[in-house]
């Protein structure tokens, strides 16, 4: 055994790999260069110096929610480790967290306020003082207010920096960026009353209770690294973990089974599973009758659900009519249509009937009819997998005991129609009742999706509310939303918009762009004024952030003074409010806000947790009642008008999607003539190394990974490419170039790059130059609108000219 293993482990392979890892260091800093002479105050290392230990929290965008313990020596952040103030299960800190001791001091940090001196996008700036910067910000905001009104300002917010109240204070628009992460949820959530994120209904600590866990397009062991133990504990307890992914991801390599399907065809797989479960009658009739809309009657012609005609009540709070939820079912006891919750009724799942002269059928009967084409043989061809694989998967899911159906953000959700996948998945759940009990759930499990508590919001004057912007931010370039000023918090201008060349033209047309961030990311170059914020380790008060993290409440604590001229989030938000004379509505400092938000929280989960108690408990306390993993919908009551899983989407009847119908992707589909020119799908996947754009500037992570595109060695050979060659990646929308490497893990018809690469990670341009900004025609039908189909992108790759 050990002999066989060691055969690949020659001494030479050890050596070679070392060389490759050491050669990876990269990242030169444009802002560092622009600000030549600005260097870190040099530290005199002194091992015998003064040390203090600080407990705080790490990172918002990553869903790890780690509590950490920091050692500060002579004013420097010298060591980070998992906090020992939480139970062992929660004592976690990944390599990104550890790399902060370097990342915080990175030469790529924005150091001072900057004013643009070159063209937009050119990245030429001069340093200005905070006072100068805030004068410009104040006068630009007022200018826009006078010319076009407050709704002409839009705050494009990523998770960091965090300016929770700024949109309300300025009366600006914000938060219309649902083009990301909600693609599959668009199909799942209408059935179970969610808002589009489709968070997993159970927590991953419950995975040990499952017999089957299907992970579709989610590289869980990288993107939810901190919950990896739940994966392995479940597997050891006997769960079969099946990963559906076009690439051999880390998670695929650790799974019981990997299903390598064609990119963007996940919907076909789940449609076929529905058919196979129906054909074999593996569905749970009792569950369907009691807890879903499957027995409801539909008019076969109009597609409308039959109703008793109950007069809708009016919600006193909103003044709007409440959905009367007066659907009819066929009562086999009396042979007539009765209201679904009639206690005397014996509803049937099947059959067609006549009601008031109209031909009607149950939703389930309609489903059976609409599924006819979606055989396992059909899906096998669509997905390029064996029919038997699909049939076994369906059987396991439906008959193999408790099962999870999970999906992710960053894979199949970033195509033009992932709602169909979501709709099929929620129907699979409704057919089998795999929800609301230990070991059975549906949704996105990222970060573990444990208990979360809500905190109190600072009371602002009632007239201070964000502006309603009727257009989604990713459509600003196409549809005039009346926005003339952008406040970009973090690298949003690159991350939230596909087709960068179009974005550039739109950005050029704006009156004013303010960028607030930590690093010299792509968005910076477009700004007129740049404001540097601190990392969460630097602060001007002791405690500034309270967070309802994974099963805990966490409080931040200052480790070091602000570096350079950067200021913490709250202080910058305060200054922006002050620039237009509106700061008086804010608490005096972030600590007052933190104290307020926890001490006034009404959530029963935070019972007994106060600001002072948190400080006493090293800044973290478990929520009340988290001993058992969270099981969502345990009472099988869903927040829908009927309290059931409402899987028939009546408003989508006009587009044929009341029940899910296969629809080809926009670019990535067999037979698309564009493939002759651009035969490769560009997959922008997530990775353990970054949280979107964040950590791109960490030299300690660049030890392991530097910007590159990866192709299957077969695709490399077809194009005459060798490892390390600089290649152009291009299509009709644009081009970027970067080094290329071969990797067997990549599907031969795809090119993979980790998402949100900065231009600095590329030789020229950046991946958003080529990404697809198509809008699905069914946009208006989807609860959060059509997702931005970043991964529904075709490209060709060739050796860069002159290389």
């Amino acid at each position, binding site marked *: 055994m050990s002999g066989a293993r060691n055969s690949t482990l020659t001494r030479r392979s050890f050596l070679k790999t070392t060389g490759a890892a050491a050669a990876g260091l990269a990242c030169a800093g444009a802002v560092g260069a622009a600000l030549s002479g600005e260097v870190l105050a040099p530290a005199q290392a002194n091992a015998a110096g003064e040390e203090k230990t600080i407990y705080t929290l790490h990172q918002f965008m990553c869903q790890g929610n780690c509590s950490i313990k920091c050692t500060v020596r002579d004013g420097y952040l010298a060591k980070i480790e998992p906090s020992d103030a939480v139970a062992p299960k929660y004592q976690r800190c990944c390599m990104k967290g550890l790399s902060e001791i370097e990342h915080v*001091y990175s030469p790529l940090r924005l150091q001072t306020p900057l004013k643009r001196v070159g063209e937009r996008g050119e990245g030429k700036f001069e340093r200005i003082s905070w006072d100068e910067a805030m004068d410009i910000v104040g006068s630009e905001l007022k200018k826009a207010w006078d010319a076009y009104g407050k709704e002409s300002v839009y705050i494009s917010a990523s998770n960091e920096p965090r300016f929770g109240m700024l949109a309300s204070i300025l009366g600006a628009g914000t938060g219309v960026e649902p083009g990301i992460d909600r693609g599959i949820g668009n199909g799942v959530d209408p059935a179970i009353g969610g808002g589009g994120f489709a968070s997993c209904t159970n927590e991953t600590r419950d995975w040990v209770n499952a017999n089957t866990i299907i992970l579709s397009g989610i590289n869980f062991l990288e993107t939810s690294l901190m919950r990896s133990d739940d994966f392995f504990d479940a597997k050891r307890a006997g769960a079969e973990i099946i990963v559906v992914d076009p690439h051999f991801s880390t998670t695929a390599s650790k799974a019981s089974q990997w299903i390598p399907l064609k990119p963007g065809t996940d919907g076909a797989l789940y449609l076929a599973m529905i058919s196979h479960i129906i054909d074999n009658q593996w569905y749970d009739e009792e569950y369907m009758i009691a807890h879903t809309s499957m027995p409801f009657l539909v008019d076969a012609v109009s597609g409308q659900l039959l109703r008793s005609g109950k007069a809708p009540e009016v919600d006193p709070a909103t003044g709007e009519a409440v959905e009367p939820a007066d659907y009819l079912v066929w009562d086999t006891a009396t042979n007539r249509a009765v209201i679904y919750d009639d206690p005397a009724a014996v509803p049937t799942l099947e059959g067609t009937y006549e009601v008031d002269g109209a031909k009607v059928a149950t939703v389930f009967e309609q489903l059976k009819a609409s599924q006819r084409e979606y055989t396992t043989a059909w899906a096998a061809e669509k997905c390029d997998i064996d029919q038997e694989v699909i049939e076994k998967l369906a059987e396991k899911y439906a008959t193999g005991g408790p099962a999870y159906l999970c999906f992710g953000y960053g894979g199949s959700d970033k195509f033009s129609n992932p709602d169909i996948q979501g709709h099929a998945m929620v129907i699979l759940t409704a057919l089998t009742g795999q929800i609301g009990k230990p070991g059975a759930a549906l949704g996105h499990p990222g970060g573990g999706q444990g208990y979360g508590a809500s905190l109190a919001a600072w009371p602002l004057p009632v007239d201070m509310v964000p502006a309603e912007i009727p257009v989604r931010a990713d459509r600003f370039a196409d549809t005039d939303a009346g926005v003339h000023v952008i406040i970009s918090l973090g690298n949003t201008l690159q991350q939230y918009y596909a087709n960068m060349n179009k974005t550039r033209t739109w950005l050029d047309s704006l009156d004013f762009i303010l960028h607030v961030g930590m690093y010299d990311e792509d968005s910076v170059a477009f700004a007129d004024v740049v404001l540097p914020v601190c990392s969460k380790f630097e602060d001007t008060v002791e405690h500034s952030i309270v967070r309802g993290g994974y099963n805990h409440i966490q409080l931040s604590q200052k480790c070091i003074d602000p570096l350079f001229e950067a200021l913490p989030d709250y202080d910058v938000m305060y200054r922006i409010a002050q620039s237009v004379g509106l700061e008086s509505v804010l608490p005096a400092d972030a600590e007052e806000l933190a104290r307020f938000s926890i001490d006034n929280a009404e959530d029963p989960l935070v019972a007994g947790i106060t600001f002072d108690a948190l400080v006493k408990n090293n800044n973290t306390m478990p929520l009340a009642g988290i001993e058992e993993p969270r099981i969502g919908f345990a009472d099988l009551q869903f927040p829908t008008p009927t309290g059931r899983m409402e899987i028939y989407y009546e408003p989508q009847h006009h587009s044929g999607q009341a029940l899910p119908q296969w629809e080809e992707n926009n670019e990535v589909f067999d037979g698309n003539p564009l493939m002759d020119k651009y035969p490769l799908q560009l997959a922008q996947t997530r990775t353990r190394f970054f949280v979107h754009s964040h950590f791109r500037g960490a030299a300690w992570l660049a030890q392991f990974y530097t910007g590159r595109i990866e192709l299957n060695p077969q695709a490399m050979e077809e194009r005459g490419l060798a490892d390390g060659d600089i290649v152009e990646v291009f299509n009709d929308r644009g081009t970027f170039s970067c080094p290329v490497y071969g990797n067997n893990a990549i599907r031969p018809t795809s090119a993979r790059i980790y998402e949100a690469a900065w231009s600095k990670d590329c030789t020229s341009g950046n991946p958003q130059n080529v990404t697809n900004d198509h809008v699905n025609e069914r946009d208006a039908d989807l609860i959060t609108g059509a997702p931005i189909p970043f991964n529904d992108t075709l490209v060709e790759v060739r050796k860069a000219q002159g290389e």
Partner: protein
Amino acid sequence: MTKLGIAIDLERCVGCHTCANACKMQNNVPTGMLWNRVLTEGCECIDGAVGTYPNLTRTFLPLACQHCENPACLRACPTGATYKDDMGRVEIDYDKCIGCRMCMAACPYNARSFNWEEPVRDVDFNYGDAAVPARAKGVAEKCTLCKERTDRGEEPMCVKCCPTQARIFGDLDDPNSEVSRVVVNRGAHVLLEEQGTRPQVYYFD
């Protein structure tokens, strides 16, 4: 006697490199060096795979000094700078190291790094544990099994930080320690057994 060692669960190892950075931080390891690396077996690149799509396998291999019972490095070291201590750890006395790099040539695991220049760091201060001694230009260095931590009765930093608990640390001389039990019960093996170095780092899956 005490014989400290580590057993690594290759099934649970997800190749995250947390152990690599935990070690780098704790031990103030300079730029361009890692005492603890995570290789992808049979691949030149990190996160590669062995085979032909879609018939693929991947095994991550975290690799640092194996704290061999019969260390090739120690036999090669002409000054006695490399020594086996009473806890079973292989350590380097930096003051005695003359920079001849015989140990590096001898080690079959490529576990050692050398300070060709005055060490530089990405930041301008010494990070990690204040008790870890500084190394100068011209000395060899490697995983110490977190000597300063294990002296205090703590586990090595890579073990503490591993998010999947893939790394089990303890006394291989104590048959009741978790690490001893895992080595016996889970059929653990060592790397390059034929070299006769008798590593105290085991791997199992």
